[in-house]
């Protein structure tokens, strides 16, 4: 459990003071994958660097696993840092060391004996899927492989918290997905808390269960990923949700379809949760003998299940259709709205 109270960081330049992080209060549960999203300059990178005091906070408190980070002296801070893994956007590997030696570096810092170090490095290399690359130098690796080394290195001292500062921002979409899968695996198998900074909503959607949206050094919106997707309140949040869902206007503009489908009912289904896995559409068709055409929609998968909107046209016996509608409304978590009824 990480708790942050009134955390601020003010950068002072010649004349002006800029609050990169402004009086931030937040708590993150053990085992969460907590995403922080924001545009460049929102202060998210500063925020994550405050957590292990790579930046010294101007004011505020950070408590991590009952240890107050903000009051530690230099020596204590070094020891605590060994328990906090960090993954960087540009990997920050030592080019002069091989893959295995890079991963062994934090173990050397922690003073682990050589034999144990070698064992641990072997396990980590397998964990991140780099077997056979032990003696390669970073310059010989692809971006995705470099980040795997970065992750293995961050995990070397068995940390309880992993900080990811734009860990996938320098990678192509496919590699990003592979790295995100790796992070989810690590989170599940090792049970460590991951705090992840990103400007890509895709990343939040794919692996986070909690999200905080940052703007001008403040958290403007925070909560369960699905809730934030479903009911974005702030303009900036809406923009981020739009990144993956397309705009609302675009989705709800079905006037052109309405003219083509004169029969039956035009229905909007809103998925918020896991019901997509239950083959809802085919269930309705089989159970109630109605015809369904899928007109338009977009469904996306989050860590908490499916989320999205689907427009369908339902045709058939009026009684059956009403039964089908009440089934969806009462038995599932899908929100249903009849937009147009030809009958």
């Amino acid at each position, binding site marked *: 459990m990480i708790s942050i109270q009134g955390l601020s960081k003010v950068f002072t330049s010649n004349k002006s003071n800029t609050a990169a992080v402004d009086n931030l209060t937040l708590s993150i549960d053990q085992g969460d994958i907590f995403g922080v999203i924001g545009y460049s300059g929102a202060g998210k990178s500063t925020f994550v660097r405050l957590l292990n005091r*790579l930046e010294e906070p101007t004011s505020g408190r950070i408590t991590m696993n009952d240890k107050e980070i903000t009051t530690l002296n230099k020596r204590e801070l*070094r020891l605590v*840092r060994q328990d906090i893994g960090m993954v*960087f956007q540009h990997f*920050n590997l*030592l*080019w*002069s060391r091989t893959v295995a030696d890079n991963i062994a*570096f934090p173990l050397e810092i922690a003073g682990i004996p050589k034999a144990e170090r070698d064992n641990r490095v072997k396990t980590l290399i397998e964990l991140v899927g780099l077997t056979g690359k032990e003696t390669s130098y*970073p310059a010989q690796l692809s971006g995705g492989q470099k980040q795997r080394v970065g992750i293995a290195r961050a995990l070397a001292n068995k940390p309880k918290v992993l900080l990811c500062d734009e860990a996938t921002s320098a990678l192509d979409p496919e590699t990003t997905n592979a790295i995100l899968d790796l992070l989810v695996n690590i989170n599940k198998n090792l049970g460590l808390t991951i705090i992840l900074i990103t400007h890509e909503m895709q990343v939040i959607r794919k692996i986070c269960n909690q999200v905080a949206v940052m703007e001008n050094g403040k958290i403007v919106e925070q909560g369960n990923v699905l809730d934030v997707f479903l009911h974005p309140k702030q303009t900036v949040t809406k923009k981020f949700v739009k990144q993956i869902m397309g705009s609302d206007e675009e989705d709800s503009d079905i006037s052109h379809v309405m003219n083509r489908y004169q029969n039956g009912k035009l229905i909007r289904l809103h998925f918020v949760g896991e019901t997509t896995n239950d083959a809802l559409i085919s269930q309705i068709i089989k159970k109630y003998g109605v015809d369904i055409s899928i007109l338009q929609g977009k469904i996306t998968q989050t860590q908490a299940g499916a989320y999205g909107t689907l427009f369908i046209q339902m045709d058939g016996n009026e009684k059956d259709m009403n039964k089908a509608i009440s089934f969806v409304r009462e038995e599932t978590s899908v929100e249903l709205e009849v937009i147009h009824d030809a009958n």
Partner: protein
Amino acid sequence: MLTNLLPNIKVEDFIEATYETFYMTIIALVGTFIIGLLLGLLLFLTQKGGIWQNKLLNLVIATVVNVFRAIPFIILILLLFPFTNFLIGTIRGPNAALPALIIGAAPFYGRLVEIALREVDKGVVEAAKAMGAKTSTIIFKVLLPESMPALISGITVTAIALIGYTAMAGAIGAGGLGSYAYYSGFQRRDFDVVLICSIIIVCIVFLFQFIGDYVSRKLDKR
């Protein structure tokens, strides 16, 4: 035929002079490497935003470095005569040249070290800090290994400057090829001696350059 063309050449004297040049260059190079590395590290670490940020110390070291780099080498030797006499007990011979050679070359190398260290990726230093590394760990396991190719090319450049310095020191009595070329060659109007000395010095320079380039390339895994 060779003796006709080069009537004044005595092979034993050349071997002796070449040995002295090597001796002065290599001992001075070792001293320069150690002192220059220290100066460069201090300059880098005490600079603004550095690990040991210290405006005053940085200013003092930078001033010392700049002053000693500004003094022409031939004058530096003269200035250092009392110091050399106190340290070595004489102001003649290869050993007497060493203090001046080191004091002349170390500030130069110190600047090169500072530049090399600045080229080290700040992100890597930050990563080491995030892992809980001590300053000594950052210096010996990050800064120095990551800047090694530049440190080696720097010492190569310095070595070549040092070979030049030994010749200058030779002209005022330090021994070596410079001394031989000046006293036995130039002053006696035996220009064949000057020519051969020059050729040997050029070969020594090439040798150092070749070794430096090779080592630097071998170490660079980027």
